[in-house]
C-alpha cells in the first residue's frame, strides 16, 4: 500500500522523509527567529533588523567559547543566549530606547545599520569562508523509513520546547499578562505602577537571546559564517509577514509549517523551493494583509 502511494507520487520514501526532516529543521529556526521578532515587535514596536546578525553572533559565540575558553556546546547553549541577550539589553538602553518617540522607520533603520556594522566586524575578523563547529551529538538512528541524526532530532525537539515554553509564559502566566497588556496599552500599564520601560528592555534582551540560541543550535549544522544571518533573516521576515506581526502562536505554527512546506516543495517541485515562501507571502498579503494569525491594527 505504502509502496503504491510512493510509486504514484513518483518519489522514494527516503527522499520524502529526508526533506521533511530538513523542512522541520529549517522550520525550527524560522520559528525561533520569528518568535523573537514577534515578541520584540509586540512590545517595542520595533522591527528588529539586527535579528539575523544576533543569530550569527550566537553561532560565533559558541565557536568563540569553544576555541578561546574551551567551553563545549552544552555550556554555550546556556551561556551564549545570556551573553548576547545582555548585549541586546545594552543596545536597547543605549540606542533603541532613544527612538521610541519617533516613527517606526527610525528603529528599523537603526537596527538595519547595526546589522551591517556587526556583520562587517565579524567578516573583518573571521573572513567569510566559514568556521567549522563539531557536532556534539554524532550518529543517529535508523527508523526504518529514514535515518534520523541525533543532533537534528535534538534541534527540532529543543526548539519546540523553547517555543512552547515561551508561548506558555506569555499567554498563561502573570508576567505574560503584563506583557500582553503593555503590548496593547503601555501608557495605562505604566500608570498602574509597572515599570514599562524596563519591561521593554528585558523583552528586547529576551528576543535577542532567542536569536542567539538559534545561532548556537545552528553552529553544528551550518558553517559559522558572518552572513549566515542575513541569508536566513530574509526568509524569516517573510514567515513573520505570513504569520502576522506580533502573534506568538502564529509565528511558531507558521515557522514550522513553512519549513515543512519548503521541504515538500523540494521533493515535488524543486525549482520552486527557494521561492515558495515568498509566493505564499504574496498571496497572504493580498488576501489577509495582517497575516494568517495577525489582527489588523
Amino acid at each position: 500500500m505504502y509502496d503504491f502511494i510512493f510509486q504514484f507520487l513518483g518519489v522514494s520514501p527516503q527522499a520524502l522523509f529526508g526533506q521533511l526532516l530538513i523542512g522541520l529543521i529549517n522550520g525550527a529556526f524560522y520559528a525561533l527567529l520569528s518568535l523573537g521578532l514577534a515578541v520584540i515587535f509586540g512590545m517595542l514596536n520595533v522591527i528588529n533588523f539586527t535579528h539575523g546578525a544576533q543569530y550569527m553572533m550566537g553561532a560565533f559565540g559558541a565557536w568563540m567559547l569553544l576555541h578561546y575558553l574551551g567551553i563545549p556546546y552544552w555550556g554555550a547553549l546556556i551561556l551564549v543566549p545570556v551573553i548576547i541577550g545582555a548585549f541586546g539589553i545594552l543596545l536597547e538602553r543605549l540606542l533603541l530606547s532613544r527612538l521610541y518617540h519617533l516613527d517606526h522607520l527610525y528603529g528599523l533603520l537603526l537596527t538595519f545599520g547595526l546589522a551591517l556594522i556587526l556583520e562587517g566586524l565579524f567578516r573583518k575578523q573571521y573572513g567569510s569562508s566559514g568556521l567549522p563547529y563539531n557536532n556534539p551529538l554524532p550518529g543517529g538512528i535508523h527508523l526504518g523509513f529514514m535515518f534520523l541524526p541525533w543532533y537534528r532530532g535534538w534541534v527540532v525537539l529543543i526548539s519546540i520546547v523553547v517555543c512552547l515554553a515561551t508561548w506558555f509564559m506569555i499567554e498563561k502566566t502573570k508576567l505574560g499578562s503584563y506583557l500582553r497588556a503593555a503590548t496593547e496599552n503601555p501608557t495605562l500599564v505604566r500608570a498602574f505602577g509597572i515599570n514599562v520601560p524596563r519591561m521593554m528592555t528585558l523583552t528586547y534582551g529576551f528576543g535577542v537571546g532567542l536569536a542567539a540560541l538559534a545561532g548556537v543550535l545552528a553552529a553544528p549544522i551550518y558553517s559559522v559564517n558572518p552572513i549566515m544571518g542575513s541569508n536566513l533573516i530574509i526568509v524569516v521576515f517573510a514567515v513573520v509577514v505570513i504569520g502576522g506581526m506580533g502573534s506568538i502562536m502564529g509565528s511558531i505554527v507558521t515557522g514550522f509549517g513553512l519549513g515543512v512546506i519548503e521541504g515538500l516543495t523540494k521533493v515535488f517541485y524543486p525549482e520552486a523551493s527557494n521561492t515558495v515562501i515568498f509566493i505564499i507571502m504574496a498571496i497572504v498579503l493580498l488576501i489577509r494583509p495582517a497575516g494568517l494569525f495577525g489582527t489588523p491594527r
Partner: protein
Amino acid sequence: MAETAPLLDARDLNAWYGESHVLHGMTFSVRKGEVVTLLGRNGVGKTTTMRAVMGIVQKRTGSVRFGGTETIGLPSNLIARLGIGYCPEERGIFSSLNVTENLLLPPAVKAGGMSLDEVHKLFPQLKERARSQGTKLSGGEQQMLAIARILRTGAELLLLDEPTEGLAPVIVQQIGAVIRDLKKRGLTVLLVEQNLHFAATVADRHYVVEHGTVVDEFENKDLAANRERLEAHLGV
C-alpha cells in the same frame, strides 16, 4: 494644620498636547476621605487634568502634591506607586486578557487593598464572567471591571473619569452605591462627571472647569442654592 493638609493638592497646573496648551493653571485640592468632582462642558480639560495628575501627559508644569510628595517631575509608574489608582475615561480594558487577568493586572501599591473576594462581593458580575475576554463584557461590566481592578491595589486616591458615561440607569445606581461604599471605607475620590444629578448623589464638593482652569467651586450642600450659576457654567 497637618490634619487639614489635602491629600491631593494641585496648583497652577499647566499641560500641553504637543504645541496645544490645554490646561491653563488648574488649582484644586482633595482632602483625605472626600469625594470631589470636576464638572465642565466637553473639551474643557477634565480628562487632561486626570492625565496630568497621573503623569501621563508629557509636558506639564506647576505643582501636584500627593500626600506631601511633589509628583510633577515623576513618571507615571512612580506616581501610581505613591497610592493613586486611575480609571480612564475609555476604561482601558485589555482585550488580550480575560476578566480575572484584567482584575489582577494592577500591582498592589499599598497595604490594605480589597481582596479578590471583597471585589467580587462588590461586583458579582465579574465573578460570573471571570474567564471571558475582557472586552467581551458589556459597557457597564467593563466600567465595573475598570473600577474594581484599582480597588485591589490599596490606592488611597481613586481618579474616576466619567464612570457613568453611556450606561443604563440601573448600572449608574450601582456605581453610585459603590462610590458611597468606598467613601465609607475611607477612600478618597476625584471624579469627573457630566451627569450633575449623579454627581450630587456622591460628592462632597464640586469644581467647575472652563478652558483648562477652575472657575468656580461649591460644597455639595450648597448645590441647590447655586443651581442657576452652575447651569450657566455647564450650559445645560
